[in-house]
């Protein structure tokens, strides 16, 4: 069992791990039946999925052509941006799906920022109809 074989095995393993997490993320996206829980599946599983594959890539290139680390940059970008994406999708859910009663009151302050709108602009209910894909 040479170093190559070990690395190869590690590469294969990380690839498989990444693949599974990727799949789980999307599976959860379909499986979960309410909007907010759905948000968890891909943002969590997705980052590690790609992360594992990027690690596989780093390992692979170290084994084959002198190595590379720039995959780390991709990882960094994903880790930095994923929370913002999730934050915005959550805001959309709060804005479009949840009535104020469902949310806990914010401690210390009056209202959650997304729902902080002037009364006359709050025209909830007058929303664009959405196409339903068959549900």
């Amino acid at each position, binding site marked *: 069992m040479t170093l190559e074989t070990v690395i190869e095995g590690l590469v294969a393993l990380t690839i498989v791990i990444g693949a599974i997490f990727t799949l789980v993320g999307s599976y959860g996206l379909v499986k979960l039946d309410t909007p907010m829980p759905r948000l968890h599946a891909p943002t969590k599983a997705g980052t590690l999925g790609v992360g594992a594959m990027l690690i596989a890539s780093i390992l692979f290139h170290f084994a084959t052509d002198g190595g590379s680390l720039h995959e780390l940059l991709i990882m960094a970008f994903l880790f930095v941006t994923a929370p913002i994406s999730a934050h915005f999708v959550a805001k959309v859910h709060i804005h479009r799906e949840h009535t104020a009663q469902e949310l806990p009151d914010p401690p210390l302050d009056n209202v*959650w920022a997304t729902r902080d709108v002037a009364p006359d602009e709050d025209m909830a209910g007058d929303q664009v109809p959405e196409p339903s894909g068959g549900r």
Partner: protein
Amino acid sequence: MVSHLFRRLFPHPLLTLLLVIVWCLLINGLSLGTVVFGLILGTVIPIVTAAYWPDRPRAPRPLLLAEYVLIVLWDIIVANVVVAAIVLFKRNADMRPCWVAIPLDLRSPEAITILAGTITLTPGTVSADVSDKGHALLVHALDAPDPDAVRDEIKQRYERRLKEIFE
């Protein structure tokens, strides 16, 4: 005088460092030429973008920050496994999703952002909103029978450390 010039040239030394690292990663190699060019860019770009950095954030404490990063990375791995297990094996009806309101001791936007990001990346939680004065964070938990425990853990594990690092 020298320090003044240094502050003029490197208004955000950490940023310059970050940019040099980014540049080396982009080039995917470490040579003198790369570092020199990276330094040039790392100097010029902060100057060009200085207008977008109206106030200078307080420099974090590097060691504590490193510790924090490692904790978070570990938590991310754990979180992924946990979430994967929930997604795969728990029936939708059995899940206990809930909203958690977290009062904040942090005041600096940078720290709050990192906290919110951490929450999203770690176990079964997503930071969804802030309150209208910025004193609380709204977090959604995927499966949390006890919301208060979630709140306490976040404040203990992350917010406390961030307060030390940034404030």
